[in-house]
C-alpha cells in the first residue's frame, strides 16, 4: 500500500463535512475538527432553500446553471433531506426582470421554468395576494441542513474519516515555508460524544451492511463501506457508531480527551466559513472577506405550501420557506465585520415582513416563534450575496505549502465546492481519482432510523424533520421503552422524559447546559419557547446536580429562548410571553428570591409575622401522626 496523505479539515459545517467525505471516498486519511457541534455555524442558521438558480439566471448564467445542476444532484443523493416542493419567484415593481425575462433567462441555462399568470400562480399557491399579476414556477426545493450535514458526516466516517466535534483549532504551526502542525483544544464538556458502550468493539464488529452496495471506487481509492479490503475501509456494522474517533482502526487515539493536542497532518483544508480569515490568521495569513448578517424568523404556522421568493434581481432575498409545519422567513442582509456578531436589531422582523406581506398577506397574522441570525461569508466583491466561492491555496498566495482555505458558496452548491477542493488537494499530491460524491447516495435515505441514530451521536436534532414525522414512533426503542412511566415534558415537540434523560446522560461531567438538551431533542422549540416546559427539563438535573446549578441552568435556558423571541413580540406570541411571565413570576414565584445566605446562622427564614393559616389542631385535627405507627 502506498503513501496515504493525512488531510485535516477545519470546520464542521456542510462544506467541511462534504470535503471530508469527498477526500475520504478518494482514499485519503481525513480528520475533521469542529469547535462546537456540527452545523453550529452558518449551516444551522440559514433558510433551507435549495436554490434552483433561477434568481441568477439573467445576471449570472454560469452560477445559475451550476446551481441547478447541484439542486438536481442533491435531490438524487440526499432525497431524504430534500423536499421537491417547487417554488415561485414573484417579480416586484422594483425589479428590472419580468416574468418573461426570467423564463427566457432560465431557458438559456436549461433551468425548467414556467411563466404563470396571477391566477395560475394562486391556484398553485393559494397564499399569494390577489394583487400578484404573475410569477415564475421554478424547481426550488427545501432542504434540512441539519440532517444533510449529519448524513454527510456519517458517510465520511463510513469511508474512514474521523470527525471530532467540540475540538477547536487554536494554533497552526508554520516552519520553513510549510504548515507543519495544528494545535487543537478539546472542550472538556464531552457533549456530542458517542455513548461509551458504542465505542467498545466498534472496529471488531464486521457485520456486513445491507445488500445493495454501490460500486467500488476505482483507481485504488477506498472501497465503499462493507466491501472487504481497502486500506482503512471501515465495515460499518449495525452496532457500529460512525463518527466515533478511532473507528478507522488506525493508531489515532480512540477518544480525544480534554485538553490540548498537536496534530501533524500532511495537509490542511480550512473550511471554517465566516471564521476562515480568523483561522488562517493563526498561521499568519490574511486575506479579505465579506460578511453579512441575515435575520430570519420562524412562523408557528405554515403560511405557504412551497417556497415563495420575492424579487429576481440579486439583492436581499426575501423568501418564505416551508419546513415541517412551520416556515422560515428570511433573510436580511447587513454587512458585519465580526463573524460572531449575531445580535441583530429589533426591527429585523419588521423589515422582512414589510416586503413579504404584500405578496403573502397571511404572514401578517402568522405567529412568530422567534428570530435568529446567521452570518454569510464569501470573497469580497460588490453583491455580497456570498454565493460565489474561492479557493485560496496559501502556497500560491503566501508562499507557504500545505494549506488551502475555501470561502463562500451556498449550501446548495456545497458538494461542488467540496469537489473542487478535493480535486485541488488530490492534485497537490499527484493523486488522480475521480470524484464520486455526485452519485453515491448519502446514508439514511432508505432507512431514516439510521440517520436518527447518528443525529443522536452528534448531539443534534432537526427542528425541521422532527415534526414532520411521528416523532416518537421512530425513536430508538431504548429511549422509549423504559420501565417507569415516560411522560411528555415538552408537549409542542413531543419530547419525553426519557429522551431528556438520555440527552443529559451524554453530558455528564462538565458544565450543565440545558441548551444542549434542547439542541439534541428539540425540546422548548415550540410555541411556548420553554415557558411551560423549561422547568420540567431542568428538574431532570435533580438530584445529580446541586440546587444552585439547576436554577442557573434553568435561567440560562430561558434566557436563550427569550433572546430569540423578544425582538418580534406581538400578537399570539406576545400573549404567550405574557402568560409565561405570569406563570414564572406568580405561580412559580421565580421573579424574586429570598435572601437565604444572610440567614445562614439561623435555621431558615423567619416566618414570624406571616399568616400561619386557620387554626387547625384540636378537634379539627386528624387523630395525629402518633396513631400511624
Amino acid at each position: 500500500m502506498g503513501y496515504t496523505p493525512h488531510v485535516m479539515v477545519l470546520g464542521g459545517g456542510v462544506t467541511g463535512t462534504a470535503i471530508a467525505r469527498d477526500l475520504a471516498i478518494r482514499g485519503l486519511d481525513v480528520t475533521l475538527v469542529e469547535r462546537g457541534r456540527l452545523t453550529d455555524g452558518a449551516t444551522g442558521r440559514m433558510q433551507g432553500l435549495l436554490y434552483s438558480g433561477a434568481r441568477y439566471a439573467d445576471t449570472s448564467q454560469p452560477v445559475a446553471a451550476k446551481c441547478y445542476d447541484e439542486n438536481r444532484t442533491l435531490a438524487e443523493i440526499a432525497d431524504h433531506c430534500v423536499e421537491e416542493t417547487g417554488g415561485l419567484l414573484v417579480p416586484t415593481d422594483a425589479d428590472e426582470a419580468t416574468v418573461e425575462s426570467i423564463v427566457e433567462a432560465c431557458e438559456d441555462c436549461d433551468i425548467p421554468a414556467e411563466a404563470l399568470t396571477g391566477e395560475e400562480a394562486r391556484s398553485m399557491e393559494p397564499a399569494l395576494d390577489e394583487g400578484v399579476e404573475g410569477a415564475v414556477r421554478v424547481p426550488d426545493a427545501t432542504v434540512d441542513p441539519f440532517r444533510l450535514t449529519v448524513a454527510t458526516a456519517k458517510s465520511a466516517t463510513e469511508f474512514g474519516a474521523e470527525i471530532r466535534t467540540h475540538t477547536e483549532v487554536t494554533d497552526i504551526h508554520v516552519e520553513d515555508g510549510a504548515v507543519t502542525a495544528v494545535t487543537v483544544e478539546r472542550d472538556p464538556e464531552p457533549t456530542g460524544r458517542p455513548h461509551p458502550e458504542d465505542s467498545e468493539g466498534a472496529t471488531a464488529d464486521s457485520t456486513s451492511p445491507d445488500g445493495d452496495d454501490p460500486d467500488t471506487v476505482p483507481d485504488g481509492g477506498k472501497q465503499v463501506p462493507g466491501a472487504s479490503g481497502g486500506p482503512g475501509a471501515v465495515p460499518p456494522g449495525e452496532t457500529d457508531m460512525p463518527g466515533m474517533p478511532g473507528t478507522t482502526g488506525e493508531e489515532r487515539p480512540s477518544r480525544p480527551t480534554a485538553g490540548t493536542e498537536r496534530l501533524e497532518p500532511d495537509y490542511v483544508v480550512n473550511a471554517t466559513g465566516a471564521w476562515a480569515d480568523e483561522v488562517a490568521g493563526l498561521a499568519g495569513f490574511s486575506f479579505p472577506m465579506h460578511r453579512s448578517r441575515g435575520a430570519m424568523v420562524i412562523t408557528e404556522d405554515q403560511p405557504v405550501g412551497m417556497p415563495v421568493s420575492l424579487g429576481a434581481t440579486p439583492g436581499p432575498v426575501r423568501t418564505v420557506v416551508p419546513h415541517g409545519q412551520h416556515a422560515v422567513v428570511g433573510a436580511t442582509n447587513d454587512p458585519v465585520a465580526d463573524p460572531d456578531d449575531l445580535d441583530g436589531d429589533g426591527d429585523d422582523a419588521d423589515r422582512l415582513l414589510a416586503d413579504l406581506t404584500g405578496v403573502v398577506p397571511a404572514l401578517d397574522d402568522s405567529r412568530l416563534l422567534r428570530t435568529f441570525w446567521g452570518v454569510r461569508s464569501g470573497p469580497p466583491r460588490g453583491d455580497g450575496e456570498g454565493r460565489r466561492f474561492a479557493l485560496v491555496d496559501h502556497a500560491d498566495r503566501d508562499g507557504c505549502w500545505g494549506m488551502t482555505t475555501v470561502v463562500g458558496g451556498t449550501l446548495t452548491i456545497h458538494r461542488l465546492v467540496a469537489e473542487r477542493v478535493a480535486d485541488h488537494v488530490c492534485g497537490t499530491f499527484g493523486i488522480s481519482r475521480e470524484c464520486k460524491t455526485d452519485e453515491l447516495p448519502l446514508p439514511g435515505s432508505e432507512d431514516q432510523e439510521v440517520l436518527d441514530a447518528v443525529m443522536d451521536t452528534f448531539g443534534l436534532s432537526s427542528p425541521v424533520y422532527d415534526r414532520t414525522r411521528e416523532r416518537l414512533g421512530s425513536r430508538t426503542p431504548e429511549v422509549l421503552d423504559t420501565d417507569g412511566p415516560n411522560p411528555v415534558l415538552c408537549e409542542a415537540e413531543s419530547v419525553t422524559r426519557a429522551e431528556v434523560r438520555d440527552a443529559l446522560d451524554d453530558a455528564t461531567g462538565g458544565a450543565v447546559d440545558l441548551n444542549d438538551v434542547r439542541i439534541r431533542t428539540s425540546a422548548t422549540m415550540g410555541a411556548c419557547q420553554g415557558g411551560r416546559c423549561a422547568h420540567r427539563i431542568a428538574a431532570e438535573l435533580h438530584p445529580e446536580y446541586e440546587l444552585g446549578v439547576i436554577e442557573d441552568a434553568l435561567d440560562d435556558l430561558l434566557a436563550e429562548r427569550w433572546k430569540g423571541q423578544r425582538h418580534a413580540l406581538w400578537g399570539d406570541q406576545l400573549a404567550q410571553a405574557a402568560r409565561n411571565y405570569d406563570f414564572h413570576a406568580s405561580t412559580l414565584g421565580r421573579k424574586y428570591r429570598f435572601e437565604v445566605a444572610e440567614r445562614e446562622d439561623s435555621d431558615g427564614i423567619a416566618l414570624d409575622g406571616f399568616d400561619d393559616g386557620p387554626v387547625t389542631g384540636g378537634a379539627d385535627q386528624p387523630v395525629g401522626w402518633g396513631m400511624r405507627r
Partner: protein
Amino acid sequence: MTDDVVVVGGGIEGYVAALTAALEEPVADVRLLVRDDGRFCHEPGWIDLLGYPPADGDSAGDDDAGPVREPLQEPFAALSDLPADHPYSRAGVEEVRRALSLFEELSGYEGLDSDANALVATATGAVTPTFLYPDSVASGLASDGRETLLVGFERIVDFDAALAAAKLDEFLPYDVGHTTIELDVEVGGAEPAKRFAEVFDDNEELDGELPARRAVAGKIRNELDIEPRIGFPAVLGRSAAEDVRSDLEAILQADVFEVPLGPPSMPGLRLADRLRSELDDAGVAVETGVTVTDVGTADDRIASVEVAGGSAEGDDLRERYEGEQFVLATGGLGAGGLRADRERIREPAFGCHVTQPADRADWVAEGFLDDQPFARAGLAVDDEFRPLDADDTPEFGNLRATGRVLGGADVAAEQSTGGVAVVTGYAAGQLAAEW
C-alpha cells in the same frame, strides 16, 4: 330587552363584577358574557393582595438571577404607599377590605382573619406571598411551621416533589421530605392534570384493584414519617375535591394540601365552578362561548354589544345585547383583553385607549424575568374606573374597566393579580349597579 348591567369577560374580575352588581341590586338584570374557562385554567387558585412593594418600572436587568426582595408581611399597611394610578388607590383601602370579605364569603376561601400575607410553596420549590387561599391550600402554608411531606406523581411533570422539597428544605426552618409515586392512570390524549382529577373525582379503580384514593394513600403510607401534613400536585379532583382530600386525610391521618400547577389549573377551575354556582344563585344570566365583535354607541355611551361565537347549539351564533351599564373584564395580554399588532397594543372589544411605551422595542425587557413593560400596559381609568382616552376624558360614560386590562401596575411582579381582579371587579360592579 335591555339589561341593567352587561359584564364582558370571564375571569375573576368579570365574575366578581357580575356577582357584586347582582347582590347589590337584586332586582337588576345582570348578564355576563364569557368566552371560555381558559382564564381560570391559568389561575393558581389563591388570591394575592400585595406580595411585594411595587416595582419602580425600571428594568433591573443587572442581575439575571433575579433581584432579592423581601415579601411584605402586612399588605394593607403598604396600600397607602401605592401610586395614585394604581388600581388599589383608585378603589381606596376600605373598598379593598370590603371586596375581599365579599369574595371570602363567595369563594369559601380563608386568610382574611389575619391581616398578614401567607407564604405558600410553589411547584418549583420557591415560596411566594399570597393573601386569600382555598381550603386545599390552607394546611400547606409554608408560613405555618409544621414539617411537610411532598408527594409527586410521575406523570404530573410540572411538580418534581424531590426537587421542590430539596429547595424548600434548604431555607425553611423545618424539614420538608418527599416521595414520588407512580399511579397507573391511562392518560391517553387527555391533559394529564384533568385526567388525574377525573380519576380522583370518580375514585376510579387503578390496576383494576384499589380505588384511586386508597391506592395513593397505600403507596405513601410507608414513606410517611412524622409529618403532620402532606402536599400533592393540585390534581386531587375537581367536582369532588373536598371528598378526595378528606378521604386521603382520613386514611393517612394527616392534613392534605395541594401545590398549584400550570394550566389547566384545577384550583382555578374549582374557583370558576364555585363562582359560577353563586352566579346562578344570584340570577345572573351567563352566556358562554361568545366574543364581542362590535359595539353600538350613542352619545358617548355604549348602547349594545354584538357577540359572535360557538354556542353549544351551533357555531354561527350572533347576538346583540343592549345594556345600561357595561363592565370591561376581558383580561390583559395573556388573555386577549389586550392585543398587540406590530405597532400598538390595543383593546379590541371596545377600542379603548391603551397606555403603553410608544416604541415596540420598549415593550419588552432584556431579560425574561426583568420588570416587563408590557405587563404594565393597559387602560388608564378615573376614580369610577371609567377608561380614559388620550386626553384623560372618559371614553364612554357607562363603561368601567377592571382587572388585568387596567394599566399602571405589574401585578404579576408585585403579586397582586387576584386582589386587583377582586377589588376592581367589586368596585365596578357596585358602581354599575348604583346607576
